[in-house]
């Protein structure tokens, strides 16, 4: 990827060479990212959450499903930092463990989104013509379907397990990535370096994946970061509606399980809600930072 960046410094404007540019591209990238303080804060929160998710079983030797105390204890009551939920489970433990599932589903769904979206977008943008027509009509078909409803139908059809939920979210949210990838490919395929690659006899497959793709990635990576956030919200929505795997603890499930107690025990909903909010916000700040870091025009300032 960095190789390709070296050969094609920016959007075909080789005259914009300045002092930042001569540094190593990754270094520039980091510098640009660090200039966006909000994005740094987002990254910090994100690392914290991922860390909690990864190391949860090491820190807390507890089962999130275990009923440890009376239901609906207030935060702090009975030694439970965030209180207990409607079945007397420790809310703090549940949120820490919930981070794993929420992150896993969010990441997996974003991955699926990216794979489907990239493949379809790349094909449509590179081959154009009837391939483009067909693929874009398919994309439009998926675009007009209400995403939450479609995801609900998918999960209801194929039993609510973690995999189904991730796939359902992926299947309903790839259209944006596809359109973005198509636009990038349409633009890049006419560039000099692509023409050069073609002239030395590179095959389509090579051009698509090794020549154009690395250059099309930056906006897609930004999009992927946002997609993780959207996928997390999606998972929460599905769990809230009861369409989630009852064997795993996720934030959406916590909210869904406790929604009947909203008036009696608002904290049971507030804390998982805050967790979702912070994660989605951090993803969107990271996306913002990545946009800055990838954008060569900002480097001149």
């Amino acid at each position, binding site marked *: 990827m960095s190789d390709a960046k070296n050969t094609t410094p920016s959007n075909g404007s080789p005259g914009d060479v300045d002092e930042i540019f001569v540094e190593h591209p990754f270094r520039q990238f980091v510098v640009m990212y660090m200039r966006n303080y909000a994005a740094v804060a987002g990254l910090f929160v994100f690392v914290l959450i991922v860390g909690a998710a990864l190391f949860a079983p090491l820190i807390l030797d507890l089962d999130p499903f*275990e009923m440890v105390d009376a239901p609906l204890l207030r935060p702090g009551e009975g030694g439970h930092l965030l209180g207990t939920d409607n079945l007397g489970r420790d809310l703090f433990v549940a949120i820490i463990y919930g981070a794993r599932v929420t992150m896993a589903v969010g990441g997996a769904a974003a991955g699926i989104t990216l794979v489907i979206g990239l493949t379809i977008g790349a094909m449509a943008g590179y081959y154009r013509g009837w391939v483009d027509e067909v693929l874009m009509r398919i994309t439009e078909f998926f675009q007009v379907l209400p995403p939450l409803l479609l995801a609900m139908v998918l999960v*209801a059809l194929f039993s609510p397990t973690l995999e189904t939920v991730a796939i359902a979210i992926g299947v309903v949210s790839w259209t944006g990535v596809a359109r973005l990838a198509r636009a990038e490919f349409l633009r890049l395929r006419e560039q000099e370096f692509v023409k050069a690659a073609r002239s030395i006899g590179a095959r389509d497959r090579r051009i698509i994946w090794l020549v154009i793709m690395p250059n099309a990635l930056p906006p897609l990576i930004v999009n992927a970061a946002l997609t993780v956030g959207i996928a997390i919200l999606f998972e929460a929505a599905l769990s809230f509606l009861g369409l989630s*795997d*009852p*064997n795993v603890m996720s934030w959406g499930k916590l909210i869904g*399980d406790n929604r009947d*107690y909203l008036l009696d025990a608002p904290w049971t909903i507030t804390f998982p809600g805050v967790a979702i909010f912070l994660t989605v916000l951090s993803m969107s700040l990271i996306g913002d930072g990545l946009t800055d870091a990838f954008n060569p025009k900002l480097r001149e300032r």
Partner: protein
Amino acid sequence: MNRFFRMAAGGAALLAATAMSVPMAQAEPKQGGTLTMIYRIIAGHFNATIASGTPTGIPATQMFAALIRYDDQWRPHPYLAESWKIADDGLSVQVNLRKNAVFHDGHPITSEDVAFSIETIKANHPFKTMYAPVTKVTTPDKYTAIIHLSAPHPAIELAMSSQLGVIIPKHIYGEGNIRKNPRNSQNLVGSGPFKLKEFKPGEYIIMERFEDFFLEGRPYLDRIVFKKMSESTSRIIALETGKADISPFASDPQELTRLKKSKHLTLTPDGYSAIGPLNWLAFNTTRKPFDDKRVRQAIGYAMNKELMIKILYSGFAKRATGPIHPGSAFYSSDVNNYAYDMAKAKALLDAAGLKPDADGIRFKTTLNFIPGGAVWKRWSEITKAQLKKIGIDVTLKASSDFRSWIKTVAGHDFDMTLDSVFNWGDPVIGVHRTYQSTNIRKGVPWHNTQQFRNADVDAIMEKAGLENDLAKRKALYAQMQKMVVEEAPVIYINESPYHTIYNHDRVGNPPTDSIWGTSSPMDNVYIKQ
């Protein structure tokens, strides 16, 4: 709110004298008005001769009359039958019909229709034991029917009541396959106090007063609107705002807790003793390790049932201890009640050879639960957490909808499942089916899905089912309950906390005056305003 009630109660005493005349005037039932009833589900048809279940039964008992009706003390009363007599040898029942009774299309209701209805139920209804001893129904004259039995059948009177014994017109339903008859759901011709005006599948049923109903001056209501409302929140709002008058089979603890605070609403658990709803954890006794009774008993001991009931039902439900509902005359409390005992549970599992591995896991299994309704999901999560403590790793299996859950359980494709099963009045009708080894019928909902086989239990149920002497029958069932609980094909948790919620400012003579509750004719109900 509580303080308000106490004040109101105090005030009521003072007001009693001045208000005397008002309730007196209201006590007189009057003609007219629309009763709006809401329910979670709406059935696809209302022919109760071929289907069980309350979604069919509630509207069916309004549109079709049975021969007998029951009061709230388990006493039978004449309904479509003017009188009836069980022969001394218990082998026949003579039924004398009312002579003024007509179907909704004006045809007189005759003994031919009675014979046809009973034969149809015997051939089609899922409750096979209900009319199993009936050999034939003879019709000596237009208004006399004689039900012949191969053996004494103490459940026969209950089987002739409510939704179990509805009388349908032979001239409408007698031709072709009754299951495919379009008039099971549209242009229905019934015998009951209300006739079908409009049915919008999945949405509502409108029933209207039948002018030529055989009971003089009844029904009082002009119309019953039976509306589907599957969301608990919508039901709460409909009742609170007065858009709905009555909601039967309410069991959601949140719903009950909230509506209890409404001044114009009454919540009553009356009217469910014949239905006899029990919630339990069922085992597939043919699968390992549940083929070992010690494993089933261990799970019984490991479940903290009191805690479950407290957490799940906020105090609205009562503990169930055995296969017969406490509301029944045959209930016996002399059974092992599986008091919460972890040590005992672990010892039993050890004895069964299921030792914990390095992670403390003895075995892995799955638990299915009824979809829809937060209570069932919570139920299963608590069970999972409790069984983990004795080293059983339970994976919960959610079904996408009610039908697929039924299919899974009826098809024996489960390890453990939560279930809610009704007693249906007499043990012969609603209890035997769960434990009889002859009633293992794959694919049929609510048969002996546990595939429990015990020759002694079979024998004692058969004997009890033929015993016409109440005291002897009670003794036999007491023995049966003790045996079944000991064998533990299911672990009994609680009575389903069904309540009827109604607007007492509007609804007079609420349908709680029968053991059948709202699954009995509401010809006596009236609207106050």
